[in-house]
């Protein structure tokens, strides 16, 4: 069982390898003539002012937090979906209560305007 994951691990390493080797080839074959203008960040012909890494709208954090919560919900749903036939009505009702409670949260988020992008 776990032996099967060896190939998966190797595939991950190959994936990383492709990402390393291809730019390396490009670096060997391509020219290297840096100059200050070429290396400056792209800004439609202006000199870049101030640091590009700026503070950001808090909404993006909110999306990331809500994503974590929903992702956890999905992690709970996966084993449930697999055994739904075996656990029958009891398991189904248990999950409906679980989802019902979380839908309350979803409705709250909707009504509060956390899903609004304006």
């Amino acid at each position, binding site marked *: 069982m776990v032996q099967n994951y060896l190939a998966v691990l190797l595939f991950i390493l190959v994936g990383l390898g492709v990402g390393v080797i291809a730019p390396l080839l490009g670096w060997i074959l391509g020219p290297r003539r840096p100059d200050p203008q070429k290396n400056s960040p792209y800004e439609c012909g202006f000199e870049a002012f101030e640091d590009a890494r700026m503070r950001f709208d808090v909404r993006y954090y909110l999306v990331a937090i809500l994503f974590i919560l929903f992702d956890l919900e999905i992690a709970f749903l996966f084993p449930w979906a*697999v055994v739904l036939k075996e656990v029958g009505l009891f398991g189904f009702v248990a999950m409906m209560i679980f989802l019902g409670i979380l839908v309350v949260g979803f409705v709250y988020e909707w009504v509060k305007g956390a899903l609004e992008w304006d």
Partner: protein
Amino acid sequence: MDFTTVIFSAFALTLLGAGMGVILSRNPVHAALFLVLAFFTGAGLWMMLEAEFLAITLVLVYVGAVMVLFLFVVMMLNVDLDRLREGFWQHLPLGAGVALIMVAEMVLVVSSKQFSKLGADLQPASETVSNTRDLGMQLYTHYVYPFELASVILLVAIVAAIALTLRKRKDSKHLDPAQQVLVKASDRLRIVSMRSEGDQ
């Protein structure tokens, strides 16, 4: 040395290296990425323990979701590390004390007799039934109450996250079309009767 040992050592060493990287790197973004690597290799170790579902869920939830939030925060807040480093020597004694106590606790727990007994009465994972199925059968029958409690905790987290972060922005130039079409001529234009200049 067999193949499993090679892979285990590779994972374990990477995990330790990544852990060191988290606390030693000067750049918070690098530190967060080292933590991602640590989770990933941790998942590899869990996988070697045949905890298939848990290992992949660790990657799915921690690497795919929690660390994305971490990265968002350290990238967008632009944490100034030099300021954070300021009182290093001053707080060192306190920090070292806490660290010592934690190490002592860990040594006590790991060396106790109870700890070595922990896994003794466990059955090995079934060869035929998949991990996920096993877990599902337990979770939605025996442990259904804790499972429902988890949903309440998640609900609290949703409400708290919204309450803490949601603010109405004042500088937003958003237009609401529904409001716009409701405008009547009388809201925008007022006709007043006044004498024209010629009458004077």
